[in-house]
């Protein structure tokens, strides 16, 4: 393992921001994995740290293929993490909305540029991503559809679902999108949580990434198949929204199979405790997302279900 400072930014008052990468194996740039780009992505950083532990073991046993270099960047934006902010604290910009970056541009454009310049040229790229929505997700892999990455590669992760997303205008400045434009086959791995560590989901993500490396010949240690990945379009996932604001009481869990009309949750009046709305499944399927904050506004997505 080699630890390298990939990009360094001077701060007016703090120690410099040193983005650190961990490299394994040598030769062809095979795969790069990027963890936390936002200050709340603790789980994403944790997944990378666990992956580094696994890769250290594999390297010791010579189970990384010849002519394959693996790079892991566990945490890009630890500056925000250390002060409890989600985005770049000075101007509240999101590094993951600044790609491909610009070396003469604004601070986060420069960080994105510095990062992107070391991330180019890898055959595969994986980002541990998080959603802006507060909630828990089923561990899954997502592909932003650009026509440049073969969607059947999603199956090599062996998660239960591989999801294809049609990019929206604001997606065009993400790492994932630009990685693909610059000819890296890029995927996003989503785990169950963001601000907190979910051990089981982290392990699923680590296994999925190692399985992908095994299936693409980057590592030689066999990682057995878990699921026959079902590839679906993000648009086909049904969203259930709150009909009222109030206290959100969840009655189900991520990954559970639910029947039509099954009660998924309730919304209570936060002042007097009366039930103001009962949220039911309109159809049977697998719970893919559950909102996880006690307060909820009207018209907020509280469940997502992959229909049977």
């Amino acid at each position, binding site marked *: 393992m080699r630890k390298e400072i990939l990009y360094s*930014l001077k701060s*007016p008052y703090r120690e410099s921001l040193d983005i650190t990468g961990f490299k394994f194996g040598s030769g062809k740039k095979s795969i790069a994995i990027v963890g936390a780009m936002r200050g709340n992505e603790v789980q994403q950083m944790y997944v990378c740290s666990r992956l580094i532990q696994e890769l250290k073991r594999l390297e010791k046993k010579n189970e990384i293929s010849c002519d394959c270099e693996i790079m892991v960047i566990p945490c890009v934006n630890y500056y925000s993490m250390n002060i409890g902010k989600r985005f770049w604290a000075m101007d*509240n910009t999101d590094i993951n909305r600044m790609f491909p970056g*610009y070396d003469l541009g604004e601070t*986060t454009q420069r960080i994105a540029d510095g990062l992107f310049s070391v991330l180019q040229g890898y055959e595969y790229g994986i980002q541990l991503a998080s959603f802006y929505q507060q909630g828990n997700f089923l561990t899954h892999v997502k592909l932003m559809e650009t026509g440049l990455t073969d969607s059947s590669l999603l199956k090599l992760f062996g998660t239960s679902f591989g999801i294809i997303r049609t990019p929206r*205008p604001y997606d065009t400045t993400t790492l994932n999108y630009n990685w693909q434009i610059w000819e890296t086959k890029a995927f996003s791995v989503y785990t169950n949580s963001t601000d907190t560590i979910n051990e089981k989901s982290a392990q699923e993500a680590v296994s999925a990434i190692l399985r992908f490396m095994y299936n693409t010949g980057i590592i030689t240690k066999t990682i057995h198949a878990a699921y026959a990945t079902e590839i679906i379009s993000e648009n086909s996932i049904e969203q259930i929204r709150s009909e009222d604001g*109030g206290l959100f009481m969840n009655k189900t869990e991520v990954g559970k199979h639910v029947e039509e009309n099954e009660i998924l949750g309730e919304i209570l009046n*936060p002042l007097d405790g009366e039930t103001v709305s009962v949220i039911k499944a309109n159809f049977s399927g697998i719970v893919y997302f559950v909102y996880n904050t006690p307060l909820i*506004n009207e*018209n907020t997505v509280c469940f997502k279900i992959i229909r049977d």
Partner: protein
Amino acid sequence: MVQSVTQASLAVNETLNIKKNSIKNGKSGKRICVVTGIHGDELEGQYLAWLLADHINKNIGCLNGTVDIYPALNPMGIDSITRGIPLFDLDMNRVFPGSKDGTMIETVCSAIIDDIAGADICIDVHSSNIFLKEIPQIRISVPTAETLVPYAKMLNVDFIWVHESATVLESTLAHSLNSRGTKTLVVEMGVGMRITKEYCFQLFDGVLNLMKNLGMWSGETKEPRVPAISLNGAVGFVNSDAAGIFVQTANFGDHVRKGDHIGDVLNPLTGKIEEKVTAVCDGMIFTLREYPIVYGGSLLARILCDSSDDIIEKGITQQ
């Protein structure tokens, strides 16, 4: 008459209510919309909204048509000094046109678009952010320039910036309305969290002048000033390369030559000058940094170049 544009229930005992003041008189079907407060830390538009409502109410006989004033598209943001939508950490000007069956914010954005659509002109007033001060200007993307520049010239601004379009700006209010055929002009002026009275008066005169040109205002107006218009891409960006405090030596609106000293990035700990900041082209400073703390990359100034020879605009303009 104050009306509700759209509402949504918040979690505890409160409703998000987007309001407008619809002032009508006469028989004309002409309508303009003045909207502001998408970004909760930009307040210049608040005083403009008041000036317009006050003046039109007092001279209602001069109005022939409808003036819809939306002072606060992001009321929770303004109320809490938050640029985006509090709770979501979401820039509202990246959610348009929204969706009727989307999330709370998407439905709100969709209702706002529906309410404004069909107006003869919509003016979306921004005031940069807390970091930068802007000369009163209108920003127009190249594809809409032909349609919009003639109206922009009526608004009494100093500068019209015709910039390259960027995919990410397709989610703005202005882009969404322009694509629906409602001509929308984006004004940037002043600085975040402050009211610059002279700029508000300047744009106020511009709005009345526009209304007169549309045939919906018979009151007194002033001849608008003639704005500078950016040549294709001829805007120079001056970004800091060092970290420290920026202290300017040039002033806002100054005409500078390439290489002229415009400020310094200083290190308060060591007493050293970290960077001597110079102009990247000949031209007029139309953006200047207000907030002193800078990192490498922080924008310090923008210069409207005299010639388009050496500068290719690369920074994404903010909206």
